[in-house]
């Protein structure tokens, strides 16, 4: 464990169910989350991201491995003795308590003096701009307001880590965008490590300092949003995040790749045999028909405002997405034949 990591997860495994019916939800997961980091667990439903969050919160116990918070081993510690707080997907605001009673709940459990509780509740509500709602009950609030109260309640005890379980998924798109910005500002203001769980890749890229992409109970790649997007290490990561073209190729000695259509590319690699090439739609270049590495025909064009997204049918079957800037003087016409060139510096070579 390094000095700066707040949460340290080492070789954690977890199964649900017993015997032959057991389902492995987490498989040998290790990750270090740093101080004041906005760290996101990203993956499709069932990838184990929520289970990992619940293990850190203490609602589940790991079968194997070790979980430490601020250097303290908490693997067997019950949730009420862990210095973390959770913002639940359903918010889980107590319906029989007012907003201020909800926010003060943990402070009362910590036996803080009444005047201190009042001050801290006030501060927390101010942070999320909900002071004027202190006496209301959760049922009298809108979804966005409940979301803020849930945040205030989890921040009031000043946890070492704030755990957020898909907290924005219940909000409509506009509100979700607003709350994303607010979350980011809130994290800077509170100076607390945020561990965020989502299946929304765009949300993950926008908010996070670092992202861990999960699939089938494993972490495939950990990195800054830029690295995850530009340099995916796995086919799954490349496919899951944004639009991407995956092309089968054969790796030949001498830094050469041969495409199914016969064209060869010179790309530095150390692979052998079958590989997958990944390239983003905005990274491929348009070439004259007959030139470039791939030959295709435009079958559909979507107007995106700032750009055009062309769907191309490749000569040897399969489709290719190509993004053309709106500033480009000669937009591709539907049905026209076109060549596609793949700049070596924009290609990722994925093994498997």
């Amino acid at each position: 464990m390094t000095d700066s990591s707040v949460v340290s997860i080492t070789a954690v495994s977890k199964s649900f169910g017993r015997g032959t019916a057991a389902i492995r939800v987490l498989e040998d997961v290790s990750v270090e989350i740093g101080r004041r980091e906005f760290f996101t667990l990203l993956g499709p439903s069932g990838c184990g991201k929520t289970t990992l969050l619940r293990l850190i919160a203490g609602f589940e116990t790991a079968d194997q491995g070790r979980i430490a918070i601020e250097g303290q081993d908490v693997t067997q510690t019950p949730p009420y003795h862990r210095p973390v707080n959770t913002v639940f997907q359903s918010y889980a605001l107590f319906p029989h308590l007012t907003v201020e009673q909800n926010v003060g709940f943990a402070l009362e459990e910590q036996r803080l003096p009444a005047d201190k509780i009042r001050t801290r509740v006030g501060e927390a509500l101010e942070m999320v701009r909900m002071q004027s709602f202190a006496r209301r009950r959760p049922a009298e609030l809108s979804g966005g307001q409940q979301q803020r109260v849930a945040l205030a309640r989890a921040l009031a005890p000043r946890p070492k880590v704030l755990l957020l379980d898909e907290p924005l998924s219940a909000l409509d798109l506009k509100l979700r965008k607003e709350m994303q910005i607010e979350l980011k500002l809130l994290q800077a203001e509170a100076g607390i490590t945020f561990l965020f769980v989502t299946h929304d890749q765009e949300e993950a890229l926008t908010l996070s300092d670092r992202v861990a992409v999960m699939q089938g109970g494993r972490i495939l790649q950990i990195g800054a949003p830029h690295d995850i997007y530009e340099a995916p290490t796995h086919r799954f990561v490349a496919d899951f995040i944004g639009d991407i073209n995956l092309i089968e190729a054969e790796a030949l000695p001498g830094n050469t790749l041969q495409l199914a259509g016969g064209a060869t590319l010179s790309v530095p690699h150390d692979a052998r045999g079958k590989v997958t090439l990944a390239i983003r739609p905005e990274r491929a270049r348009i070439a004259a028909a007959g030139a470039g590495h791939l030959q295709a025909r435009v079958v559909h064009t979507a107007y995106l405002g700032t750009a055009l997204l062309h769907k191309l049918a490749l000569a040897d079957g399969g489709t290719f997405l190509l993004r053309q800037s709106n500033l480009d003087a000669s937009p591709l016409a539907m049905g026209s034949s076109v060549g596609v060139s793949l700049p070596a510096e924009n290609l990722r070579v994925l093994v498997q």
Partner: protein
Amino acid sequence: MNIRRFPMTRGISLLVLTYLYVPVVVLVGYSFNANRTATVWSHVSLDWYGRILVNPSIQAAAKNSLVLALCAATAATAIALLAALATSQAFPRRRAVEAVLNMPLILPEIVVAVATLMLFVALGVQLGLGAMILAHTAFCIPFAYLPIRARLEGMNQSYGEAAQDLYANRFRSFRRVTLPLLWPGIMAGFTLAFVTSLDDFLTSFFLSGPGTTTLPVYIFSSIKAGITPEINAISTVMLVISVLLVSLSFILGRLRR
């Protein structure tokens, strides 16, 4: 199809309602009859209500009924609460446990009453209020269990987790979150159990010892000596209490959903 448009709906409904409630209406009506003979109407009077207020054996029976219902409903509600909390968690054979809990709703009461009597006699348990409380507690459990269980079912599972996440241990989390949220269900269950015990005749009849008559048993034994308007008056009082309590239980059950 809109059932209200069906031509005979109104007529059939009235017929069914009449069929259901005519006996009760007649009983209530005759409780205000001045005539000594219960079936001959003379004029309106509250005499019989005055009579039951001063009749010492009715008072004793009423007191027994209330003590019995209070004790049995309290014990049954406590057991039902624990059972509901336990069965809200997943465990093997949970459905079977729930079926056993609700068994008293299906078992023929006469069989259980006779069986209980034989068991108590064999064990040397003295018949009377204590024996009745034991037996009533048993058959009141499902009546208390069902509303509590329904309330728990409708409760967000993450409330308990949220409380523990906010540093409340299991006990504090139960006291500060689960119990207050469950309270209307608990009261609804208690009220239903209370009414069930109050109205019970069979079990009480078999297990009542000397001097521990309950109201339903008293009504039964008085009727053997001939129907008096007094019986109409007591029955009306019991009817009103039951309807009020069941309504209360219904309202509590729907509270703050």
